[in-house]
């Protein structure tokens, strides 16, 4: 569920960057306070482990599809929430840089969606409370399953909110939620199962690894502190969003109206009809916010002010020409002609 640059607006990307940046700074401070030098290489190697484990695909029973490890939970279990979050954030950063997974602007969103909810909500509030230092297999499994599901549900919901707030996608809120949440229920169960399996294996083979991890963060994270942090983060995000929105009139507010208004337009496609009826039958989240806003926006067509044939044609011709010019500039800049890749890949 990597969020992508192409789907978010700068306001949303920037706000999420601010929130995640704050979380990184806070976690870094906490890790520094722990002053456990051993964690420097341990975090690095465990991050590489998550990265490597994510490359291994396995089949999910009864579905035929394949899954992979998210890793936030197991990192929290091994390192505690702060170092766990930093490690997962670093994995996401490397993925964004190397493999363009998600992208640089969406990185803040991804850290929040995949890191914050698992490391700071699901792990301390659910997993630690249920599993504690227990060695009972059932308890460990229950804890991991519940925490896995909760973490992924929250993360998936955040993806929906971020996408809608950006206004690039046309998916209405309810449809998107109905698409995302059930898929991530399955993914969360798988994540929980795998986490429990790995934790049990480590506990049997090398109990001291988990024991030391547990001692370092005896109480985990307090509920109050977490809620306060989250509240502050949300306030910050809201502030940033409104600032951006007011600075850019055709930005956020307009987009939100736009997105929500779409379902009222003539819906012809069969898929849309299907989604629409699914929505109507299973609507569980009130959308009065969006409806109310819609009345202020009489026709979506007006948001595109100039449906002008002249402009359209000029745009198309000019656009193609620009591409051509860029291409020629590229060829001119390149000195040695087209390069073959093999040259770069000496061992």
């Amino acid at each position, binding site marked *: 569920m990597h969020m992508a*640059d192409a789907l978010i607006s700068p306001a949303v990307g920037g706000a999420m960057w601010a929130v995640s940046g704050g979380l990184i700074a806070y976690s870094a401070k906490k890790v520094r306070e722990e002053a456990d030098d051993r964690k420097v290489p*341990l975090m690095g190697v465990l991050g590489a482990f998550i990265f490597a484990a994510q490359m291994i695909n396995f089949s999910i029973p009864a579905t035929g599809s394949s899954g992979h490890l998210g890793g936030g939970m197991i990192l929290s279990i091994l390192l505690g929430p702060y170092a766990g979050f930093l490690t997962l954030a670093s994995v996401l950063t490397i993925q964004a840089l190397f493999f363009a997974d998600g992208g640089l602007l969406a990185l803040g969103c991804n850290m929040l969606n995949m890191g914050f909810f698992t490391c700071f909500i699901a792990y301390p509030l659910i997993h630690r409370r249920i599993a504690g230092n227990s060695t009972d297999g059932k308890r460990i499994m229950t804890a991991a399953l519940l925490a896995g599901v909760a973490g992924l549900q929250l993360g998936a919901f955040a993806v929906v909110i971020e996408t809608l707030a950006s206004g690039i996608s046309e998916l209405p809120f309810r449809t998107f939620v109905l698409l995302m949440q059930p898929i991530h229920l399955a993914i969360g169960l798988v994540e929980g199962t795998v986490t429990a399996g790995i934790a049990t294996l480590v506990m049997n083979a090398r109990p001291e690894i988990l024991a030391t991890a547990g001692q370092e963060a005896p109480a985990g994270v307090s509920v109050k502190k977490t809620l306060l942090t989250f509240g502050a983060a949300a306030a910050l995000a809201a502030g940033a969003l409104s600032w951006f929105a007011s600075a850019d009139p055709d930005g956020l507010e307009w987009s939100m109206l736009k997105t929500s208004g779409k379902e009222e337009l003539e819906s012809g496609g069969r898929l849309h009809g299907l989604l629409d009826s699914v929505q109507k039958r299973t609507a569980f989240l009130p959308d009065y916010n969006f409806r109310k806003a819609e009345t202020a926006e009489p026709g979506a067509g007006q948001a*595109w002010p100039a*449906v002008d044939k002249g402009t359209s044609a000029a745009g198309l*011709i000019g656009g193609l020409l620009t591409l051509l010019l860029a291409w020629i500039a590229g060829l001119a*800049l390149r000195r040695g002609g087209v390069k073959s890749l093999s040259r770069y890949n000496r061992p």
Partner: protein
Amino acid sequence: MNSFAANSFDLGTMDALAAGNTPLHRLDARAKLLVTLLFIVTVVSFEKYSVSALMPFVLYPVFLIAAGDLPAGYILKKALWVSPFALSVGIFNPLLDRQIVLHLGEFGISGGWLSLTSILIRFALTVSAALALVALTGVNAICEALMKWGVPRPFSVQLLFLNRFLSVLAGEAGRMTRARALRGFRKRKMGIGTFVQIAGHLLLRAVDRAERVYRAMLCRGFDGRIRLAGHSHIGGREVFFVTAWGALFALFRLTNLPVELGYLLTRIIE
């Protein structure tokens, strides 16, 4: 298994590319990182039906690829390959937004198709610029730039260590899955139980490795702080690079050059 080969290939290739020696490679990482971030923010700041206005931005990735002597095909292929998520979300736009907003002769193009096109173009632009940045700079130099910008050390050091041990751990994981594939004749895909076993043992080995690395660090006087010798500096070239591209992006953002160009051209034809 293919993903392993491909990913390891990518790790190696990006590093090899970053070891190049063009003026663009030698430019301080901070300048390149800053301009690329500026680029991404500017590109995504356009409203959602923008298509033609995005075109001039192609110049930046094309410049990086050409002046940096990067293999264009490789970067493009990677850019097209990643994130099915963007497409899977964007693909609904044509279904849901059917208002005709653009006429080309007899054809009417709906807003949904236009915004989908816009999403894909944004995607290609941001991804190719980010990939070109890494291929020109290397993750290590980017981490050092972050360190100089005051990103908390536990995080920037973590990035350096992660990058260092990626290929080591990926190699281990690759060998373990290959060993499984060679013995698991009937099942092509790995079950969840096997995955837990492989990942669990990979994890145990990772923890042991971390302990050995820690000892090696202690043996050479590690005291909890990672020090790096300074390699980089900001000079006139960096300032010029940032200012010039900043000005260009502002120009591209504030005027729709392709439309102006198109008007000019149609007028000449008429």
